């Protein structure tokens, strides 16, 4: 009788695990947040498919913010946005308790198309593991919000705060 009930428990476990895995397949092949453009396992990742070519995209856009900014002022409003800035803008480095955070955004016609974090705390292995989860989430949140109006990530509140500060500075450089 006990072994039968044990089998039921194991069956239930496999069922529960199987159900979740079949609905949202885990991203084992993905190297997590350690590579900047990796998407988190959350299903919402699909919405940020736009910057899929992003690793090559920044090279194509003007490297320095200054001309982009000027071009933005000279060619106003074809899109719904009033100012259609384009270019790559790097935010100031924000110092957090666990280390520096820096955000780089790619803007095309006033839309944030790509967000990366060239710097974030990786001092300890623990930081790496936390930020491997947090950074992709913050990047994705920014693309969805199209502003600095992001929630941040519970469990990585210092990184989130630093990310926010640097993002605000990058956005202001982009004139957004």
């Amino acid at each position, binding site marked *: 009788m006990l072994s039968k009930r044990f089998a*039921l*428990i194991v069956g239930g476990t496999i069922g529960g*695990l199987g159900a979740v*895995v079949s609905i949202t397949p885990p991203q084992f092949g993905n190297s997590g947040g350690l590579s900047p453009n990796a998407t988190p*396992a959350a299903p919402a990742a699909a919405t940020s498919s736009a910057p899929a070519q992003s690793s090559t995209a920044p090279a194509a856009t003007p490297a320095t913010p200054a001309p982009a900014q000027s071009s933005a002022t000279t060619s106003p409003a074809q899109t719904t946005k009033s100012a259609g800035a384009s270019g790559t803008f790097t935010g100031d480095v924000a110092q957090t308790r666990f280390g520096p955070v820096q955000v780089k955004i790619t803007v095309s016609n006033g839309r944030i198309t790509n967000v990366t974090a060239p710097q974030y705390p990786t001092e300890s*292995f623990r930081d790496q593991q936390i930020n491997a*989860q947090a950074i992709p989430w913050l990047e994705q949140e920014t693309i969805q919000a199209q502003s600095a109006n992001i929630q941040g990530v*519970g*469990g990585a509140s210092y990184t989130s705060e630093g990310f926010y500060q640097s993002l605000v500075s990058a956005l202001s450089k982009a004139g957004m």
Partner: protein
Amino acid sequence: MSSHQTRAVSHLPRHEGIGQRYNADWAAILLGAGLGLTIALEVESMSASDWHGVYPVITSLSRIAALVGSYFALVGLVLVARIPWIERSVGHDRLVRWHRKLGPWSLYLIFFHVLLVGLGYAGGDRVSTIVELWRMTVKYPWMIEADIAFVLMIAAGITSYKKARAKMSYETWWTIHAMTYGAIALGFMHQVLTGPMFIGHPLNKYFWLALYLGAGAVILLWRIVIPVARSLRHDLKVDHVTVEGPGIVSIVMRGRHVAKLRAQGGQFFSWRFLQRGHFLVAHPYSLSAAPQQDYMRITVKDLGDHSADLINLKPGTRVFFEGPYGTFVAGKASRGHIVLIAGGVGITPLRALLDEVDHTKEIDLLYRVSSEEELIFHKELDAAAAYRGARIHYLVGSRREHPMTAAYIQKFVPAFADSEVYVCGPTALVERVFRSAKDAGIPKTRIHTEEFEFHAL
């Protein structure tokens, strides 16, 4: 004397009827499904970096250990949360047994979590494990609380270990054990704030929060709100206290609508007397008589620090209770012949059970005590003998004089092999009689045991 017919008919013992078995099966499936979802939290949030290298694998394992350990801890609490349909369908005794099986696993897993997380991160950072554990404690949020929780859980584990438990009073054990609730709550925040399976995974976080809140709500409702409400409604108060023997007292309580509690002889309640020195700790004691009108009686031997003082309970003292619990009841008997075996103060539930056995059944009571003055309920038992023909066998003397082997029991009860057996007393006696009954060919389903050391201490 229907023994021949009943032996020929194959039947299900009443306490594990078909419905009950299905419910227990469903509970097992549900337990498994929850475990699957819990493991999925980690699996879903894993990425390739989590298994590239020995140390990431160690930290991944540590997280699985933590999740499963916490899940087992929550399930362990819910099992003993006195949820009526679970109590009815699985049975309190079995729930406690499951709780006792699950508890150690929860502790081992959480222990492994601490060990492995320290080892894994220390390896990644190239420092010693001790340094890493210290760093984590000071650097990350809610880690000090998590450390406290870990210590509390270890304390609860050690004090519940059989040999340690036997050395301490019920009050000490209970107090340390009750801290586990706090420990589990304290551990929660460090999980959701630093666990990679929760960071950036709101769905995981909601699931985990729902699990904790659900468990908390169930415990609050069934272990606090409802018992308090029922205690107030039944308005139970100490009526009088009498001395039954050396260090043995009976407490008679009176309430309102006591019959509605549907308590049966052989069952127990968890009692809490609202008098200084008694109300902090609840004690489980069996009824020593079937409830009559609005009266209930318990009989307690001076074993813990608390029970010695019960003699001083003042009439009128309010009593809070949880219960009735237990499936050690006469209704379970499927045989026409019932053999009750008591050791020392283990007589109490059997004395109450005697009130409930229906009159078509034959009764033998073997009552073993080490000395004459320990015999209690002498008059009541003799009255039962006279009134309904129960055969009472007083066995006064040492264990060696009354070895309780199958052969020895058969001297008093020749038809032992075809009876329903109820035994209550110290663990040694209960185990001895259990073996004897099996030796005599009695199937497990017809042997009902109650170790009073576990709940009537």
